[in-house]
């Protein structure tokens, strides 16, 4: 289980997180929604251990990731997989080399086994035949799927998705959401997904949390969030221009 307790973070004078509290149960997909530039990716980077908080705790199976160093942190991170916003594929490597990278660097697998595993994972995300292409030669949707394959190849227990469908057309976005859902059902990983895709996210996630003004203002099942009486949540998920959220 992942538990975020009273998390605070400021960049210079700008307070981004002002006491975030959040719980994510094992084997669930939690969707983190909220306005652009409101700190969702910052919160995600804290949970992954890429950023240190000013105050607060991030417990992953009762270990505070913000306090861990060296090998203990490394061991914990080895349980994670991250699909970054732009895919974060190594642009000088081919699709095959990108997916093979963690296997080559972190395991003692033989070249033949690596090849077999990479081909299998690429087939799982529907990318057979794209092995020799470079990231610059494939579409945005394909990049996200390669990033997902690179992440899955290490069998992570917890996967973080940072806006996995941003910038994709609705069909590809739906295909990616369905892929995430079906993979989660077969592999049973825990997932935290930062997203803006409303209402699609309600069919993918088990739980939805909304970040506003540096805090989690609502958390529940997709149905509970859709039925929420909170005017901020209501305005956000119905994309209404009038309401408590000021549009700058």
């Amino acid at each position, binding site marked *: 289980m992942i538990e975020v307790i009273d998390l605070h973070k400021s960049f210079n004078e700008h307070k981004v997180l002002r006491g975030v509290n959040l719980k994510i149960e094992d084997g669930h997909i939690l969707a983190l929604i909220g306005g652009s530039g409101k700190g969702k990716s910052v919160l995600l980077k804290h949970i992954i251990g*890429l950023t240190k908080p000013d105050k607060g705790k991030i417990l992953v199976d009762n270990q505070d990731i913000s306090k861990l160093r060296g090998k203990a942190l490394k061991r914990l991170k080895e349980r994670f997989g991250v699909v970054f916003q*732009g895919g974060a594929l190594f*642009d000088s490597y081919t699709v095959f080399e990108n997916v093979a990278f963690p296997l080559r*660097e972190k395991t003692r697998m033989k070249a033949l086994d690596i090849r077999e595993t990479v081909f299998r994972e690429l087939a799982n995300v529907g990318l057979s035949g794209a092995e020799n292409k470079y990231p610059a030669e494939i579409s945005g949707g394909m990049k996200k799927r390669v990033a997902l394959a690179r992440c899955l190849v290490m069998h992570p227990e917890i996967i973080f998705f940072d806006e996995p469908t941003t910038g994709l057309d609705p069909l590809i976005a739906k295909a990616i959401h369905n892929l995430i859902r079906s993979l989660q059902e077969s592999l049973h990983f825990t997932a935290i997904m930062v997203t803006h895709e409303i209402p699609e996210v309600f069919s993918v996630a088990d739980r939805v949390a909304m970040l506003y003004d540096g805090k989690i203002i609502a958390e529940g099942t997709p149905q509970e969030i859709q039925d929420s009486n909170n005017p901020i949540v209501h305005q956000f998920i119905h994309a209404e221009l009038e309401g408590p959220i000021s549009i700058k």
Partner: protein
Amino acid sequence: MNPVFFPFKIIGKSLHKFIRELGKMGCFFAISLFWMLFPPYLIRRVIKQINFIGVKTILVIVLTGSFTGMVLALQMYHVLIKFGAEARIGPAVALSLIKELGPVICALMVTGRAGSAITAEIGIMRISEQVDALDAMALNPYKYLIIPNILAGVISLPLLNAIFVVLGVFGGYLIGVVLLGVSSGTYFGGINDFVAARDIFEGFYKSLSFGVLITWISCYKGFYTGYGAEGVSKATTQSVVISSVVILIWDYFMTSLLVA
């Protein structure tokens, strides 16, 4: 605020920023050295970077080395002949190249060709979250991106310097002996008499330290690049300018130290 204090505020702020930057650079280098001691030792990546920093710069070094030697011989000859010392053209060319021009010009060439590319590459990796991706895979970005470049710089620069000096001496030979008529024996005999092992080591130490400086500054600027394409372009320019200036300043200190 009293306008009288305004200039002091500006100076203080700039000084504070400069000292912070120096401290950050020092920490960056110390962390790199620290991780250099522990496995995994990524030999293949070091070899790849030697190819990038060293092998791919050879053509530039061949051209600049030969022509620097040629122009040196041409200039020296016309100065030395006034004192009837044109026979000393060999050692004059060789010593200038070995002790000073070889290491410095080599370092400037590597800065322009490889240093800028290192900053741009790491900078782009930073802004496209590739550095974060390494970190998220529990792989140390210093081991993958920084240490191979520093080691490759330390290995490549002295070797490039050696190529530069040899070709420079040969270029000087072409002008001094073939074109201006100094005898071949006088040219090489003079070099043999006046160039000591100590001079060669002086050039070697300089190029070794330049190798560290160039890769350290280039990697640092890329690793802490600003946002977007503009940030990377700014970091790349800064990396080249700072490296070039630091090379010349450091050269002065190294020379005073080694001469003393």
